[in-house]
Each structure stands twice: as C-alpha cells, then as structure tokens.
C-alpha cells in the first residue's frame, strides 16, 4: 500500500521534512484456548482500540442462552461481527471456579486475570493462552 503526496523541492541549506507513516491494520479471527488453570468456566474479552472497549462473543452455549462463558477445554472466539486487530491483539481472561481460590480476590468464584498482549497473530490461527504465565502459544489444547 502506497501513498504519494508529490515531489518535494529542496532549497540550498537545511531542509526539514517530518512525516507520519500510517500503520497497516490487519483484522481477522482466531480461536483461543486457555490453559494453566483448573476452572469450571472461562471467557475471553477482546479489546478494540478504536472503541477503547472489550467485547465478548455471546452465543447460546450448552443450553445457556446468549452467554460468554465456555467450558475449560472449549475455545473462545471474538464476536463474529467484530474481527480483531491481528497485529495488536489484547485479550483479557476471566474464570469462574467453585473450587479454586482466585489469587486476586482471595475468594472462590469469579476471577479476573487481567489483560494480555499485545500479540501478533495470524488470521484463522489457533492459539492457547496461559493466564498464569501470560504466554501465548500456537495450537490448541
């Protein structure tokens, strides 16, 4: 992709030319698994910089209508109508457990693990995120 703004004329002596380059935004979809935690449910929130907000993929799932929660071994995907920025993926992880204590709250139940990224990912790629280490690896679980 090129932008042409015409020639420049350079005069004798010093000439200053400051420019701005426009980043190429690549959008797409990925499939994200979660590992490293024992939990009953989990969900991924997807960050959209142009809106400065996180979105969740809400759908009917295992009898629960319009829910963002998934079983621990099922993946999360971005909302189909909102592709993500593949060059700057930022995602937040939330879990729910009746067994494990959330290190952030000291209680069982809902646990917000914070945000991870930015990552560079491939459109259609499958990845696994470990909220404990913050590492994102290619492939599922």
């Amino acid at each position: 992709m090129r932008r042409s703004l015409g020639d420049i004329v350079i005069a004798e002596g010093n000439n200053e030319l400051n420019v701005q380059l426009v980043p190429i935004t690549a959008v797409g979809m990925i499939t994200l698994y979660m590992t490293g935690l024992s939990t009953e449910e989990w969900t991924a929130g997807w960050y959209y910089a142009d809106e400065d907000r996180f979105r969740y993929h809400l759908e009917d799932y295992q009898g629960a209508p319009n829910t963002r929660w998934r079983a621990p071994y099922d993946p999360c995907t971005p909302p189909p109508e909102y592709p993500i920025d593949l060059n700057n993926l930022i995602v937040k992880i939330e879990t729910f457990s009746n067994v494990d204590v959330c290190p952030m709250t000291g209680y069982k139940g809902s646990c917000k693990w914070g945000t991870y990224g930015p990552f560079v990912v491939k459109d259609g790629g499958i990845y696994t995120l470990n909220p404990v280490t913050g590492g994102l690896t290619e492939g599922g679980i």
Partner: protein
Amino acid sequence: MGDIVLQEGLNTLNVQLVPIPPPTANLYGVVTDAQAGSPIVGVKVTIDGQVTYSDLQGAYYFEGLEPGAYTTTFEKEGYETLIR
C-alpha cells in the same frame, strides 16, 4: 586587484580563477507513527538513489544534495509506504 597597465609590445597576464562550490542542500526530519505519534526506528528513506534508515528517535539525515525537486520514499514493514 587593481587595473593593469599594458605596455607597448607583448604583455603576459596569467590569472587563477577560484571555483565557486556548487550550492548544497541537506534534508533531515523525523518519522512518526500516524496513530501512536511515537517515533519509528528503521524506516528506509530513499532520495535520489541514496538510502538511509531512521534511528531510535525516528530521525534521518541526508547531506550534500543538489537543490531541486526530489521524490522521497519512506518504507517500513507494517506501514503504508509514503512517497513525497
């Protein structure tokens, strides 16, 4: 250096001309990200066959150019190429 006085007959006057250096121009600037506003390092800047790369501050510099019209190209992976 004053006038010369020619005498009758043959007169020799050898002279030296001092060359005027051709005018030169320098071009410098900073390359930044249009969205983040941060400097971009490693941008390939090309002008009249000369190539340089922006440094950690996004700065680039050419010197010894002839004044005139040029096409300058700024290239970096992940960004639109800019031609000025």
